[in-house]
C-alpha cells in the first residue's frame, strides 16, 4: 500500500468521491442545523439541540476513534465559522453561547464548554485559533485571533490575540514574530524591560540561570557543551521549541522579577543567550 502513481484523473475521481461522501454524511448527521455550503463530515457526530447550531461553509469534521459531540441547549447558540476544522472527539457544549471564528483548527479530544454546573458564561474563540490535542476551554474564556493553545492546556479567562497559551491554568506569552509579516512595525520598536527597582543582575548570574534551567529540564548537563557561543540560537540548537522558549521566559520573569516585553519575542535574535542576558541586565 505504498505510494501508487495513479493517473491524475483517477486521483481526481477519488478526491471527488471522498468529498461527496463527506458532504453526504454531513447532510445526514447535521440535518436540522443551519450550515453553509460544502460542510463535510467523515466521522460519527453526536448532535443535540440542532436548532441553535450554526456551521459555516467548508467546515470539516475529521474521522477518528471517538465521535465529535455538539450540544446546544434550547435558546442557546453554538456558532462555528467557515473553514474551521475539527479533529475527532471534540466536545462543544453550549448552555448560553459558544462562538468559534473562521479558519480555526481543533485538535482531537478538545473540550469547549460554557457552563460548569454552577456558572454559565459564554465562550468566544476568534478567527485563526489553533487548539491542540486535549486542551480544555472553560466557561467565560475568550481566545484572541491567531492564538495557539498548546496540547493539554486548560484555558480559564482571556487569551490575548497571537499568543501561545500553555499549562494548567494556562499562561500566555506572545507567539514568535517571524510568522506575522504584516506586523513588521513590531520589529522596529525598542525593547525595554520593566525592571523592579533595586533588582540589578550581573550577566554571569543570568547566563548561569539560563544554562542551569536548560541543564535541569532539557539536556541534562550538556547545555554548556551544546551552546558554543552566546549567539547560538537555542531553537536552532534543538534545546527549545516555541513552547519551551515561553517556559524559559516565564522562569526568567519569575526568577529576576522582570516583566518581559511582548515585543521581545518578536525580535529575530530573541532565541539567543546574549539577547536574553541583555534583556535582563540592561536597566
Amino acid at each position: 500500500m505504498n505510494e501508487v502513481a495513479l493517473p491524475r484523473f483517477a486521483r481526481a475521481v477519488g478526491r471527488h468521491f471522498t468529498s461527496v461522501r463527506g458532504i453526504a454524511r454531513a447532510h445526514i448527521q447535521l440535518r436540522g442545523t443551519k450550515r453553509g455550503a460544502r460542510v463535510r463530515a467523515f466521522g460519527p457526530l453526536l448532535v443535540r439541540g440542532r436548532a441553535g447550531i450554526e456551521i459555516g461553509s467548508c467546515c470539516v469534521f475529521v474521522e477518528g476513534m471517538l465521535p465529535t459531540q455538539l450540544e446546544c441547549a434550547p435558546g442557546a447558540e453554538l456558532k462555528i465559522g467557515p473553514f474551521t476544522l475539527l479533529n475527532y472527539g471534540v466536545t462543544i457544549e453550549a448552555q448560553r453561547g459558544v462562538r468559534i471564528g473562521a479558519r480555526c483548527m481543533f485538535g482531537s479530544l478538545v473540550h469547549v464548554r460554557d457552563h460548569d454546573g454552577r456558572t454559565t458564561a459564554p465562550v468566544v474563540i476568534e478567527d485563526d485559533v489553533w487548539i491542540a490535542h486535549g486542551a480544555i476551554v472553560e466557561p467565560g474564556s475568550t481566545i484572541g485571533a491567531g492564538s495557539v493553545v498548546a496540547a493539554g492546556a486548560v484555558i480559564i479567562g482571556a487569551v490575548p490575540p497571537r499568543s501561545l497559551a500553555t499549562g494548567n491554568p494556562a499562561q500566555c506569552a506572545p507567539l514568535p514574530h517571524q510568522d506575522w509579516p504584516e506586523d513588521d512595525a513590531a520589529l522596529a520598536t525598542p525593547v525595554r524591560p520593566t525592571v523592579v527597582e533595586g533588582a540589578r543582575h550581573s550577566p554571569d548570574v543570568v547566563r548561569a540561570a539560563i544554562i542551569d534551567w536548560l541543564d535541569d529540564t532539557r539536556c541534562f548537563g550538556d547545555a554548556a557543551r551544546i551552546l558554543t557561543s552566546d549567539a547560538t540560537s537555542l531553537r536552532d540548537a534543538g534545546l527549545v521549541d516555541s513552547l519551551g522558549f515561553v517556559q524559559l521566559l516565564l522562569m526568567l520573569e519569575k526568577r529576576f522579577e522582570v516583566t518581559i516585553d511582548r515585543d521581545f519575542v518578536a525580535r529575530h535574535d530573541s532565541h539567543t543567550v546574549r539577547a536574553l542576558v541583555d534583556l535582563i541586565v540592561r536597566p
Partner: protein
Amino acid sequence: MGQLHSIVRSALQSGRISLNVRPLSAIFRVEVEGDIEVEGRVWVPGFGQVHIGRRVRLLGRRAPIELNAHRGGHIWIDEGSVIEAGASIEATLSVRIGPGAHVGSFCKIIDNNFHQTSGDRTKRPDAIPIAIGREAHVGPRAILLPGAALGAGARVGAGRVLSFRLPAHGVA
C-alpha cells in the same frame, strides 16, 4: 507471517471476541510477531507500517486504541508492552515503544506537530522521532510531543505534557 489473522486468533484464544480492527485493509500494514492480547477495538487508519512484538497487550475495551502510522511512518511496539484504552500513537517518521513499557489510558504520542504555531499552518514541520525506553511508564492522559524521549524506567505522571528528553529513571 502472522498478520491480522493472528490478532484475531489470539483474541479468540484469550476468549475475548469483542475485537474490531478497523479498517480491514490494516491486514496489509500490521505485522504481529504473535502471542499478543487484544481487547476491544484497535484503529489502524494510516498507510505506514505498524509492528507489534510478542506478548503485547492492547487493552482497548473502554475506548478504542489508535495506531496511526502515516505514509512512510513506522510504529514499533516491542515485546511485552501494554497499551491502555484510548491511547493514540501517531507516527509520521517513527515512534518506538520499548520492551515492557506501559502507555496509560488516553495518552497521546505524536512525533510531528502537523502545523506550525503561526504563519502558514498548512505546512507540516519536520518530525522528530520518539523513543520510549525499556519499562518506561507513561501515566494516563499524558501527552508526548515531538522531541520527547524517555530513558529506561522513566516515569511520566498523569496528564503531563512532555516535549523534551527524560533520562533513564527520570520522573516528570
